[in-house]
């Protein structure tokens, strides 16, 4: 208790002696957040975390009605939407929050990229962040199949086929992911297990590391702000920053509630493996730029199948993104690094342009 300004009650003292509350309190009181013109970007990580917590809560609720088999999955979701009170709302929130979460995750990623927050000593924070992006997209991909509707069925067919295109290990990975040679009920069971057990476990581990590192290093001050010099301004994390965080979370919740209520998630037709792929088939929007790229590639590029070029290309792109802290030597030395700013902007523009084209194309051409 020594050092703490105001006296605490007996319960606090009892807990402090057993858990060490005073150290925690010291830590929280010491935590400060830099204030500058880019401070607003600090809120995106917390907002992503908030939306993830909504996913955990609504996901658990959905588990109580969902049945993971090809025979029952579609019907159980139908029952949930039509019969269970507020079932449509819980499912809509789960679906919308997943989209918003990936959205805030991308903004968080790109703000970190453009503000060069990945520079030493925060390389591992960046690596764990990219890991969380991968886990987040895995959540989206596996979750998309679970209602077992037509769109999801074919999106998964294409998605797992793309895994099969990866040189050498592809066919094996594709089979492992599908639980067989085709997308069947076995795939659904596998995706379910991955969605509700494997990925949450991975998220807990990687997110734990990510948050620990954020606490350890504190918020990164952008190099531009550092170079400009001047007096360093900060605010206390508690309560100043946390209260601002809360405003952001409440805004996100309001947007989420409005989207879920006015645009409830649809279910569509039940998957039929012996029906043609539906016209206007689309993946989740955050896979759209890749989907659209595959659509544009000709069947052969320099004698190699176009899809292999595309898949290997995106793999290399992902690897470059992962390794940016180690590639950007100028930022690591504390010098301005225009090249990597432009790389970041190019990635953003490419994704926006291809996503736009994907949503404006005429489906039957």
């Amino acid at each position, binding site marked *: 208790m020594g050092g703490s300004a105001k006296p605490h009650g007996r319960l606090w003292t009892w807990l402090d002696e057993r858990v060490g509350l005073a150290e925690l309190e010291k830590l929280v009181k010491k935590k400060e957040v830099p204030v500058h013109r880019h401070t607003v970007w600090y809120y995106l990580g917390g907002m992503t975390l908030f939306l993830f917590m909504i996913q955990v809560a609504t996901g658990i609720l959905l588990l109580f009605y969902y049945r993971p088999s090809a025979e029952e999955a579609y019907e159980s979701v139908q029952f949930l939407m039509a019969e269970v009170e507020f079932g449509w709302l819980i499912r809509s929130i789960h679906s919308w929050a997943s989209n918003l979460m990936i959205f805030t995750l991308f903004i968080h990623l790109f703000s970190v990229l453009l503000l060069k927050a990945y520079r030493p000593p925060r390389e591992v924070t960046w690596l764990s962040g990219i890991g969380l992006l991968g886990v987040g997209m895995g959540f989206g991909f596996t979750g998309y199949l679970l209602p077992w509707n037509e769109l999801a069925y*074919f999106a998964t*067919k*294409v998605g797992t*086929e*793309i895994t099969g*295109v990866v040189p050498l290990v592809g066919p094996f990975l594709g*089979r*492992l992911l*599908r*639980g*067989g*040679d*085709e997308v069947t009920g*076995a795939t659904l069971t596998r995706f379910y297990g991955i969605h509700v057990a494997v990925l949450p476990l991975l998220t807990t581990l990687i997110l734990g590391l990510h948050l620990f590192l954020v606490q350890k290093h504190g918020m990164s001050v952008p190099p531009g702000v550092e170079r400009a010099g001047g007096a360093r301004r900060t605010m206390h994390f508690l309560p100043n920053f946390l209260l601002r965080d809360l405003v952001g979370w409440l805004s996100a919740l309001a947007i989420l509630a409005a989207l879920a209520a006015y645009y409830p998630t649809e279910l569509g037709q039940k998957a039929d*493996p*012996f*029906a*043609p*792929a*539906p*016209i*206007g*088939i689309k993946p989740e929007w955050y896979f759209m730029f890749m*989907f659209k790229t*595959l*659509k544009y*590639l*000709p*069947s*052969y590029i320099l004698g190699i*199948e*176009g*899809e292999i070029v595309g898949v290997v290309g995106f793999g290399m792109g992902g690897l470059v993104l992962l390794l940016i802290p180690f590639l950007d030597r100028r930022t690591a030395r504390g010098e301005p690094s225009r090249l990597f700013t432009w790389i970041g902007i190019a990635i953003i523009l490419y994704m926006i342009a291809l996503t736009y084209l994907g949503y404006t194309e005429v*489906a*039957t*051409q």
Partner: protein
Amino acid sequence: MAEETLDREPTRRGFINWFLGTSAVAFLLSVFYPVGRYLIPPPVAESTAGTVTLPLKAEDVKPNTGQIFKFGNRPAILVRTTAGELRAFSAVCTHLNCTVQYRPDLGHIWCACHNGHFDLNGKNIAGPPPRPLDPYVVNVRGRQIVVSKSA
């Protein structure tokens, strides 16, 4: 010289470390091998049927239409051309395995996933598909349509 040979002699600590290390590796192998094998799905017997009799009457298939049917455990497509000829192909797009469909407005086969086009010989004519669709042989016996794998 004598000291050097002494150094190279196995020490008790070295032996124990080696022993523990190999035990740990053996333990991990004995855990991950069964788990790895468990995760690989067992092979399901492929349908070896080389011939399928369709649940359709020949006269019910109108010109300029196409229909998906089951060929073993994979989808196939039956097309009657505007000239009245019946043709059958695997309906699995050679690009990324979506199921193709017949487009009466274009008069050929089309895949909705990535906009792949195939002509009525199954040849890939536009879009990303790298190979033609596998053709099947169609025989009409009386009113029955019999599709078989090309010999």
